């Protein structure tokens, strides 16, 4: 039953390969102005998918790269999956809306209930949606607007859907993520702190907070493997030297340092490169 699922349990991961056009066309700006290394990005992507498959034991569904869609590797933006329901988003960037088709097709194959954002005024990037296992927080950012958030609320009616203002060009999940069923990892920037405060105000629940020095390090992937093993994919010490130690505070976690320096130059994060789905198909 959808309502009794365990947070962090996944069966599938949907990813999309990094196209040759990676970073070339304007999907996102190159935030750091650094040069992009396509080969490195692809290598990192390879390692990333390997971790998903081998360490986390997820069934990987890889959507082929499409050089016409330079940002298509950011599959997280394209859909919000909770339980058996997938909300296909309406990305802010019009050029990215074509990315939807392939993802939708995959999700349909997984027999998820597909809901699409129909409101033409709505914009919604999946990276602005944080699902805590108990509720949704939708970042009202430069990419996601109120109508987009409403779509989330309309789709996932069982849950409280709260809106959180996100300042700057980042998505909500650029500075926070879940590191357990009741643990929020949060960055240390002012924006992150403000957002966290708002989330704490809005929630009925109590979350543990793990603060890390770098916003970038606050985006992790938490996966529960088996009945009781907690895995956390986080930015490696090379990439976020100050923050890596913070994860040691998590007891009984298997920490998996994962690199994504290249995609992060485009505003990408660990979580933005995959869609994690819990779907037992034999149902």
């Amino acid at each position, binding site marked *: *039953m*959808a*309502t*009794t699922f365990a947070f962090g349990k996944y069966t599938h991961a949907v990813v999309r390969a990094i196209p040759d056009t990676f970073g070339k066309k304007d999907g996102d700006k190159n935030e750091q102005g650094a040069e992009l290394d396509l080969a490195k990005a692809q290598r990192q992507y390879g390692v990333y998918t390997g971790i998903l498959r081998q360490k986390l034991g997820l069934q990987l569904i890889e959507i082929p790269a499409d050089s016409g869609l330079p940002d298509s590797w950011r599959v997280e933006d394209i859909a919000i999956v909770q*339980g*058996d*329901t997938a909300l296909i988003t309406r990305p802010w960037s019009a050029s990215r809306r074509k990315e939807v088709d392939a993802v939708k097709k995959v999700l349909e194959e997984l027999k998820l*209930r597909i809901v699409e954002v129909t409101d033409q005024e709505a914009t919604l990037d999946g990276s602005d949606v944080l699902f805590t296992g108990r*509720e949704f927080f*939708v970042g009202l950012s430069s990419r996601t607007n*109120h109508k987009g*958030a*409403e779509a989330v*609320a*309309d*789709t*996932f*009616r*069982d*849950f*409280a*859907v*709260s*809106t959180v203002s996100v300042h700057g060009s980042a998505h909500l999940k650029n500075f926070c993520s879940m590191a357990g069923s009741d643990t929020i990892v949060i960055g240390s920037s002012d924006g992150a702190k403000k957002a966290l405060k708002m989330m704490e*105000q*809005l*929630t*009925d629940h109590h979350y543990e907070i793990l603060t890390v020095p770098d916003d970038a390090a606050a985006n992790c992937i938490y996966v529960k493997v088996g009945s009781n093993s907690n895995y956390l994919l986080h930015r490696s010490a090379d990439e976020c030297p100050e923050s890596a130690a913070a994860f040691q505070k998590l007891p009984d976690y298997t920490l998996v340092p994962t690199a994504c320096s290249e995609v992060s130059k485009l505003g990408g994060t660990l979580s933005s490169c995959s869609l994690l789905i819990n779907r037992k198909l034999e149902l």
Partner: protein
Amino acid sequence: MTTEVGSETEVKKEPEQAEEQPQTQAETEQQPEQQLVDGKQEQSAHSTDLKQAEEEQNTQESPSTQQKDTTAASEQVSPAPQEGRAGVEKREEQPGSKGIARFLPPWLKKQKSQSHVEQKKSQMKEGETTENQIQEKEEKSPTQSPSKQQSIEKEGEEARKDTSVEEKEENLIQDHQQSKQEETKVDEKEEEKLSISSAETQPAKEDQKEDVVEKDSDVKVEDKKEEDTIQNTEVKTDRSIQKVPKKMKTFVCKVTLLDGTEYPCEVEKRAKGQVLFAKICEHLNLLEKDYFGLTYRDNADQKNWLDPAKEIKRQIRSLPWQFAFNVKFYPPDPSQLTEDITRYFLCLQLRQDIAVGRLPCSFVTHALLGSYTLQAELGDYDSEEHRHDYISEFQFAPTQTKELEDKVVELHKTHRGLTPAQAEALFLENAKKLSMYGVDLHHAKDSEGVDIMLGVCANGLLIYKDRLRINRFAWPKILKISYKRSNFYIKIRPGETEQFESTIGFKLPNHRSAKRLWKVCVEHHTFFRLVSPEQPPKAKFLTLGSKFRYSGRTQAQTRQASTLIDRPAPFFERTSSKRLSRSLDGVHHFTFPRSKSEGTGTKELKQLQAPAVSATEQILQQDFSAPAVSDLEVGFKDKEDGKEPGSPYKPTLSPESKIENEDKETEEQKDLDKTQEDVLKHQASISELKRNFMESSPEPRPNQWEKRLTGTLSAQTQGKAPSRTEEVHPDGRDLAESTEKLKSEMGREQEIDTQETMANEETTKMFTVSQRSESPSVAAKPAEGGEMKTQLREKKEETIVVRDVSTSSDSESEEEAEYRPQVARKDVDQIKEEPEENEHLPVRSLASTVHVEVKVPVEEKKELEEKIEKGGMLGEEVYCTTAEEREEPKVNGDVSHIDTDIVTQVICCSEPPVVKTEMVTISDAFASQKSEISTKEVPIVHTETKTITYEAAEVDGTGDSEPGVLMTAQTITSESVCTTTTTQITKTVKGGVSETRIEKRIVITGDADIDHDQALAQAIKEAKEQHPDMSVTRVVVHKETELTEEGDD
């Protein structure tokens, strides 16, 4: 146990009496209030109640008033016989004539009193008025304001009649009572006598008593209990309804039940909401009814809750008498409901909510919940019986698709084997997780005119824009809720970084909707957040606006009450929701358009009402007294505030009434704890009890004490043996007793070392009263060793530790602070929130403790004044509190505040203290080990009284947002030559964590020969050794020394 006791009639008359004669007592204080406030209205209301439902004494106006009445009823003794006189004689008389009675537990008394009432009535019939006449009067005297005066006059007459009758027939009645008592309660009496001799066996006997009572229980008993149970107005009303004479004009209410059927219900025209509600609950065989309520729709088709405390007619006005039975407070955890039948009704409500879209669900959840509904109503899926269209008659969602139905069927198949109750429990487990579960939405606009929704729920106030939650204010964050015209305001507690509270305003569509929202907030806050309901605001001259308060039981109370339900699970038929579901299509208010189908199941329900119900209700009612107590606290706080609201207890109560109180408390304890033996241990023996009652006041209202003290003292001092040691009682109630003692002491010194500690535990409070012996004027001769005692002259001090075992009172006192602003506001009401941290008593309790202890010196001073120049060794008292898991947070501010109190007291007494009083408060992590500090004396001329409080440094109490539930409480007293140790053990369970608190009161009595410090240290050490797993959180050393010799100590 006077005739007057417990007769409600009297209670209500009292106001009038008050007019005639100034009452010097608590009652007076209460009454004025009432008079001031609602004045005649209330009176008339009371009278109406009275007459309407003789049995039902509760003034349903509000819990507070009810309480007052009740208490008053139980304690009318003194007031009724003209108070003007010195109470001495009367009191003497009373104990004499009613000696037995005083030992009887309150319910017994009440019973008596009730029977009294009846007797009285009959007498009255003989004498002057017949009941019918009275009732006719009632009818005529429209309880309402318009004809108040009329009714008042009538009442006045009646009252006078009553009084006279009573006075004349007091003896008669007493006889009656006694005989009655004897008839019914022989056993108990015997037991009590027994208990006099044997302290040990007492607990068990108490139990027995209770049993007996319960066995004996006939309707009357129940009624009595009901009286006790202030909160449970509905039950009372139940009764009252049953007993309503047929002459009443009645009205037929149509109540749409949760299964969609309509139940016609006849109520008297002027019945209050609770009457109807009680009838419905009875019809439904529902005991856990506090979660439910009745709604009606106003002209704007808005759903309004019928206020149980107000007349139906005045609420619905010209609207049709059409109501709906609904869940009012959605229990956050339905699994904690005691009975399946309650869950069933909750399920019905939720199905409705879901079907009309009030409770939004995802597709999957619709399907899942639907499948549980099928399982509950149809049982296991049967492929033959259940064709595919079998479910299309149900409605699982506002818009039901084939896909959904398929999914429902699919899931239904997986529930094989679940019983209806199980399926419903699972239904609820899933439904409760829905984010809109229990959220009551109200349309509003924010300050910028943007349409939003305000959602009131168990945790606070939620702000939605469209479906998105855009803000949330948990109850602890909200300082005040108010409305003015169509504006609704919440005042927000400043955050850590903010300095100022902010007020947020919302615009509601109109005044009524603002008020409706405000009421819902007040009710939700009270129900979910407080342990006991708040008293309605005291009426002040200048107060305008609604005095509305939630008057029912809180969730904490109802949970407690439901733990006592022990009836066999009632059988009830689950009506198929098929019929109703279709009719709901497209309906967006969940009224049931069709009242049609006479619920098949409903009828059965009726028939099936278990005979056990009454018994159970009894039980339920018993524990209503607990709420009452908590109300007391409210009063108490208010008093501190100087408002002096109705005080439930009268100061000059005769001993019996005290016993009553005590018994009441005991009763509560029993209710609280099923291992009653423990609880009751503190009632060591009747004799001790008696003494305790005499000398202790369970009344938690320091200020009152002070007042009384002042009065009492002066009276006593003037009248009696002024040069002798006076019995000083903080509580005027003790007057009688003390007088007696005085008399006995006249001739010779009393050589009794009275070292008693008594504790009253109540649901929410505990008072520890200890008396201390002090060396007499003879003290010039320090006693030797064990002999000392004989030389001690009895002196009494009361140290009262008021400690909340549960959270409410704090909050209330917290609120009290908030109350002030309210005065200034017009048309604005507020409810105050207890900060989460303070939710636990500790803070308050500390304050109270110190507070009271501080008082001691004052009393002592007086005494000492009289005894000037008499030297002697005084006792030393150690008060240590051991607590596990939680420390009592200490508030220095409170202490100092208390200091000021002392001063005030002194002034009040207008007797310059000869004694130096020192209050030292030390906060220290190693408090217990520093007891030596107490030795550092300040040189003093005559007598020194020191109260030193050591607190563990940890200030805890944060995060305790759950009210604690008192599980057990016991008091053990042990004595040795020079020390008396009283151990008070209370166990509370809070949020799954049980806390054991042990308070030891060690009284070390002796003279210079004894090293007090050593004894103290030893005592503490022993205490620690006895409870190695516990930590000492507080040590209060109260030391009194009379210094005639140098360096003695």
